[in-house]
């Protein structure tokens, strides 16, 4: 018997609402199968199961909002290693106690009088957002819900994506980042004429569905450089650095209507330019359509943000905890550049690195940016 628990899809996630079960008791599942849809602050996410087996019981009903770590379903059958376990963990170490503290911390605070009034009016407290101290649901929150029910308005939010909830999630993660992470920042302005020339050559012969954006080429250079700088790829957890189990790049994707997600492109350093471009396209479409999978949100080992060709020249990223680094790509601009002793107009882009000084030092960070620069000068080999 194995427990299938509410996964954490990021440091900022405390709880999720079960929107849909895609399996029934008796169904056979394999690790990686999408078995449920869970509504989080990041929208509705397809949740993958971590083990092979046969579903024996669905514990949490549709509509239930439960903290991270809560048992959602039970599986009978072959037990494999839990996918969440860090690959470095020696077999002798006892299995981690599954998220019990997080479950306690994730329980929403509801003041006694708010709970009583909600009971009297049949208000579903799980649907309310607390505005009191420590985000507690207070009397005023319940009174507002009571009056909106009385006036016929529906307090239920649209399933999938709630901009206010996502704002809260971003606020929590970024506040934690600025509070806990001693960031250092480096920047390198890079001549990208070779890179753009390669893109132009490639795209000239390709129909639109196969065309490449410059960001994909930059991402490839970044992924290869990150693979050579493992101190920047991983997590700062419980006072020490845990390296990532691959270069899984979170690609920061702005959502229409506000907010952003950074789903993972797994093993980005092993993907060709075309594969990276396809992954980016797919992720952006699904992120904006709220069709992401749970592993895509929990996997990133480093995040990359690109401001695009309508953005600012330089971005100073804020690291998404518990990751230890983030790379920013500014807008490509034409600037005077010294080439062989003469000034020429050249397309340049400013790459920035924000890194956690607990996990790495500026020297290593600088090597990453220099390596990206070097790779982009040899863009034809990428």
């Amino acid at each position, binding site marked *: 018997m194995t427990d299938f628990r509410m996964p954490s899809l990021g440091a900022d996630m405390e709880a999720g609402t079960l929107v849909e079960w895609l399996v029934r008791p008796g169904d056979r599942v394999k690790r990686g199968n999408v078995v449920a849809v869970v509504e989080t602050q990041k929208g509705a996410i397809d949740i993958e199961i971590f083990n092979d087996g046969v579903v024996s019981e669905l514990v949490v009903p549709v509509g239930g909002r439960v903290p991270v770590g809560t048992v959602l379903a039970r599986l009978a059958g072959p037990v494999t290693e839990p996918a969440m376990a860090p690959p470095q963990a020696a077999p002798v170490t006892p299995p981690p106690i599954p998220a019990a503290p997080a479950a306690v911390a994730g329980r929403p605070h509801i003041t006694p009088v708010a709970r009583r009034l909600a009971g009297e009016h049949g208000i579903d407290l799980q649907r309310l957002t607390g505005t009191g101290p420590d985000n507690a649901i207070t009397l005023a929150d319940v009174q507002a819900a009571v009056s909106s029910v009385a006036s016929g308005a529906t307090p239920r939010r649209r399933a999938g994506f709630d901009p206010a909830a996502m704002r809260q999630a971003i606020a929590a993660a970024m506040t934690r980042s600025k509070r806990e992470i001693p960031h250092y920042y480096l920047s390198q302005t890079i001549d990208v004429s070779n890179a753009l020339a390669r893109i132009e050559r490639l795209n000239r012969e390709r129909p639109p569905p196969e065309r490449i954006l410059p*960001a994909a080429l930059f991402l490839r250079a970044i992924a290869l450089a990150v693979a050579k700088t493992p101190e920047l790829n991983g997590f700062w957890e419980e006072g020490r650095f845990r390296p990532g189990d691959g270069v899984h790049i979170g690609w920061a994707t*702005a959502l*229409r209507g506000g907010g952003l997600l950074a789903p993972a492109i797994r093993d980005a350093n092993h993907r060709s330019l075309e594969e990276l471009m396809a992954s980016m396209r797919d992720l952006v479409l699904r992120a904006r359509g709220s069709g992401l999978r749970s592993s895509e949100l929990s996997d990133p080992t480093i995040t990359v943000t690109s401001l695009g060709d309508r953005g600012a020249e330089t971005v100073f990223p804020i690291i998404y905890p518990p990751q230890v680094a983030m790379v920013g790509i500014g807008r490509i601009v034409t600037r005077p550049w010294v080439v062989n002793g003469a000034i020429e107009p050249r397309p340049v882009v400013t790459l920035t690195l924000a890194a956690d000084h607990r996990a790495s030092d500026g020297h290593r960070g600088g090597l990453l940016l220099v390596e990206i620069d070097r790779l982009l000068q040899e863009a034809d080999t990428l």
Partner: protein
Amino acid sequence: MNAGEARTLIVDVLASIAPEADFDRLPGGAVLRDELDLDSMDFLNFITFLHQKSGIDIPEADYPKLSTLDGAVSYLTR
């Protein structure tokens, strides 16, 4: 493809990318990327969908000609 069909196609494609936009109020000469807040991936998808639905090849060098609604209509109907 006449101008009316082209306009319908373009608006349908844009609506799939920017579902919240009000296309009845979109000026024909407005720059789509600015007006609809399209990033480079959105614009590439716009070109891709137009190509797939119209069969017209749109080389990168021609992208500026499709920067407005009116420009895109005349490009598809030329």
